[in-house]
């Protein structure tokens, strides 16, 4: 069983490493990920939101719907742990 | 970029990842996981993603290690398998 697990892990690792061959070079401005909307953000974020930190501008303004539900997910996780574990010893 | 430093940190990351799943003592595993998080934080910062590095340092190395230790404190320290 352990050899089978090792073989499965090695096969997955080799497949993943093989998949990285098709990645764009690091920081390539012409790669598909950074040629769709990010150019617009980089060019216009400072004049539209007056926020020099681009990450804050995207997280808080352009993609704030994402951030909102991220907050709700964290809140729900805390609520779930409290409702499962909290008890009064009395 | 100093690529030797990059390779060295990557090697340490792999060593830490293997050590986390092989070590028997769960407290040691939690601490090695914290080391792993700090090395990943170094890699993020080197790649220029400083926000992600900050999150990794605070959440991965700070809070999650403390939560793991709290869970170990309430259960058992020895791994069964």
């Amino acid at each position, binding site marked *: 069983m352990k050899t089978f697990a090792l073989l499965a892990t090695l096969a997955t690792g080799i497949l993943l490493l093989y998949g990285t061959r098709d990645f764009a070079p690091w920081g390539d401005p012409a790669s598909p990920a950074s040629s769709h909307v990010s150019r617009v953000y980089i060019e216009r974020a400072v004049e539209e939101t007056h926020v*020099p930190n681009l*990450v804050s501008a995207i997280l*808080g*303004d352009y993609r704030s*719907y994402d*951030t909102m539900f991220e907050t709700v997910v964290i809140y729900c996780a*805390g609520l779930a*742990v409290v409702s499962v574990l909290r008890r009064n010893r009395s | 970029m100093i690529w030797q430093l990059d390779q060295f940190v990557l090697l340490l990351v792999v060593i830490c990842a293997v050590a986390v799943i092989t070590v028997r003592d769960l407290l040691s595993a939690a601490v090695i996981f914290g080391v792993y998080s700090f090395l990943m934080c170094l890699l993020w910062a080197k790649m220029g993603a400083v926000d992600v590095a900050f999150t990794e340092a605070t959440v991965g190395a700070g*809070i999650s290690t403390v939560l793991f230790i709290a869970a170990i404190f309430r259960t058992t320290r020895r791994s069964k398998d």
Partner: protein
Amino acid sequence: MKLLQERAKGRPAGDSLIIRTSVRLLVPFIQLYGLYVIVHGHYSPGGGFQGGVVLGASFILLALAYDLKTSLRYMSEGANVLLGNAGVLIFIGIAVLCALLGGLFLDYAALARLIPMAAEEWRSFGIFLVELGVGLTVMSSMVSLFWDLASGGDMEEGL
């Protein structure tokens, strides 16, 4: 030396004067740094999530160095729940308020009908308000996670 050893024998293991004093001196600066990370997220790396985690870590540090009761004295359980709820309500309230005032959902520029400012300034200020909400929620979640995990749920004695 003998006296110190005898005095240290009476206390439980890991209970050190150096750790207590340094934590007591350090905690206000950690909280100030957390607020700085939230507020200064517009200009430097950081933001609501990281600042909230740093703020929560200060209370966790108090609970680790002293005991759970001390951190409960600094931040009561009711206040923690209240702050967590307030954080989510700030975020969603601002989003709904933008929609009610005639803009799109989460379009902070619509808030200019409430307080007249330029659209860009409102977008910058709206990001700040939203990050404040995120920070409050994350702080409350982290602190209550640690309290419940370390005490087994009954808030009596922790780590």
